[in-house]
């Protein structure tokens, strides 16, 4: 039983990061929300003095004019659809690949297996902007892939540079290491005996994986899913460099709306949409961490 004094000390220890987040992230978010709702004065007066096409609440509590202008725009809706499917496809691919790599590392305890799991982490050490540009060059028209395909008589082979398919490819490259680390370490913590017992009872490897390893590794998988999904939803560098002019993901869309169209209010509305999507993706994560905290040794 912890005393009140102990709890007080714990709270104090945690308070610097909490204060930091509240001041440098919480406050700007609150200001941004009021701006999207049409409050142009106060902390928003500097930005609103230079912005184009703003919607003002004229002293009323809120107006949703900026939201309706963005949410009904055809190009925004195209970008939204692109963001959702690119995120879903990338997350799905990342999970499948990360599971395959992690499973191989777990089941085949050979030098090659260990080498492969180490290689899967390499993208972590290559800056995103470098990796994206390399993928763009490699897969663009005139890149190595297209050139080789042409040489072997496949002139119709697609060039993924400047396409959403290329964005999916690059997002998988960027996201794979974290998922492999997360799912791989989860698999390694499952005792051999659980898997072996299922095998002894006559289950195939696939069946034992499906009924034993997957459920026991569910929490790390969900965490990997949420983190990968959130980072792809808000990604900028990959879609900016690799993606097409239009439709593209909401990250470059927001930046372009802010910078090139000089519409900060609309850009912040787009940011709110990304925020809302990220919350949806975060729900399973919150559930998983809550569950794993409750199941942790020593918890009530």
């Amino acid at each position, binding site marked *: 039983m912890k005393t009140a004094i102990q709890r007080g000390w714990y709270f104090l220890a945690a308070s610097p990061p909490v204060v930091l987040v509240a001041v440098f992230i919480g406050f700007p978010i609150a200001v941004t929300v009021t701006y999207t709702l049409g409050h142009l004065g106060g902390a928003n007066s*500097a930005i609103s003095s230079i912005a*184009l096409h703003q919607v003002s609440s004229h002293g009323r509590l809120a107006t949703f004019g900026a939201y309706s202008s963005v949410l009904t725009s055809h190009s925004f809706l195209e970008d939204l659809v692109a963001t959702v499917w690119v995120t879903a496809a990338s997350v799905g691919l990342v999970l499948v690949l990360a599971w395959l790599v992690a499973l191989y590392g777990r089941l085949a305890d050979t030098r090659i297996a260990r080498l492969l799991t180490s290689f899967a982490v390499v993208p972590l050490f290559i800056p995103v902007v470098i990796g994206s540009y390399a993928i763009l060059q490699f897969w663009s028209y005139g890149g190595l892939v297209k050139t080789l395909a042409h040489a072997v008589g496949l002139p119709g082979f697609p060039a993924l540079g400047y396409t959403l398919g290329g964005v999916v490819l690059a997002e998988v490259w960027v996201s794979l290491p974290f998922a492999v680390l997360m799912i791989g370490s989860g698999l390694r913590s499952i005792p051999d005996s659980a898997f072996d017992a299922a095998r002894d009872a006559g289950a195939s490897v696939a069946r034992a994986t499906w009924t034993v390893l997957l459920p026991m590794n569910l929490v790390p998988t969900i965490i990997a899913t949420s983190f990968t999904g959130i980072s792809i939803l808000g990604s900028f560098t990959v879609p900016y460099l690799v993606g097409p002019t239009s439709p593209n993901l909401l990250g470059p869309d927001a930046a372009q709306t802010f910078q090139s169209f*000089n519409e900060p209010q609309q850009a912040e509305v787009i940011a709110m949409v990304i925020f809302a999507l990220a919350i949806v993706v975060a729900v399973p994560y919150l559930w998983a961490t809550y569950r794993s905290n409750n199941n942790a040794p020593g918890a009530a």
Partner: protein
Amino acid sequence: MQAKKWRKMSGRGARVLLAGGMLGAGALSATVAGAAASSVAPRKSSGPTGTITVFSQGDVNVQNLWTNTLIPRYEKSHPGDHVKFVFSTSSSENSVVFDELAASAKAHKNSVYDIVDGAVPAEAAAAKLLTPVTPAEVPLMKEINPNAFKVVNGEAIPLRGSEVLIAYNSQAVPNPPTTLDALLAWIKAHPGQFTYCNPADGGSGSAFVQAVLAKYTPAADNLKMALGYSPKSESSWSAGLAELKSLTPDIFQQQYPNSNQGVMTLLASGAVSMGAVWSDQATTALHNGQLPKSIKLTELTPPLAGGPDYLGVPSNVSATEKALAFQFINWTLQNPQQVGIVRAMNGTPAIEFQYLPKSIAAEFASYSSSPELPYSANTDSDMNSKWQSTVG
């Protein structure tokens, strides 16, 4: 970027406005030689001494101009003076600096920067954040074409200039089009052989888009949109936007490069035969071999947009720093510095050719005497937005 439409001009990093008569027709006149010899050796200044802070943004060529040419020469010729240089290759930094100017002026505090270069001055002048320039502070402004001051309300001074030209592969295209209509017809007749960059990402793309929009817009409205913000005039853009949209199937890969440099990369690899490029960036690339010799530059009639890169002094700097800043700016307009800019980055000089050595004028003989005025910052933001939603 924001109130501001900063375009990313890789290679020049600056928003270009108007070109007025910078490349003036009278430039090649006989008065050239005499004036040239005047301000040769920089002298020890008798003006104030101290430190000024300069912000600039652009590609490495812009950075090199400041750190290898302008600043060392200035500090050498003005002992006791120092220039603190803040530079970003990312155009998004422009918005940070612009916001800083707007916020510090609003809060009645002194600006961090004493001189701003690149995309910021045009935007800041439109927002009345800069100090008006007078001949008392910058005597050499008399050597600059007066039109160059109109678009910035007399609040900024040209440092150098460039304009958007058509680059073409002379092996593939022996007879390049010389007018906009001929170019548009050529693009449709040669699918996949032409490209221009996203206007939001590069000024060369903006100039091409603007030219097509302007074709269907009354001249008076075009002038209004160049000198200020006139949302009503934008209604006449729809015909031009439709024309641009009809070009999309014939643009290389139906994708628009996201930088000026991207167009040059496609030209260099032979993927396209023609594209819209900045004069200074393309000339430099031709000199250093990034573009093959088979690439030639040509100007349309009437020419695409172009003009000067400006320097501005924020209105909220101390009197001492203001004096220092204008002393520096006047120095950049002296003959040796202007020639240095031409040599360092193939930009056109800010002062008229009659005040420069004859050989300089000859180098720019194929350029226009009056490139089109680019649209103002806010007009350009709207143009980018409409292009993205209808064409991109």
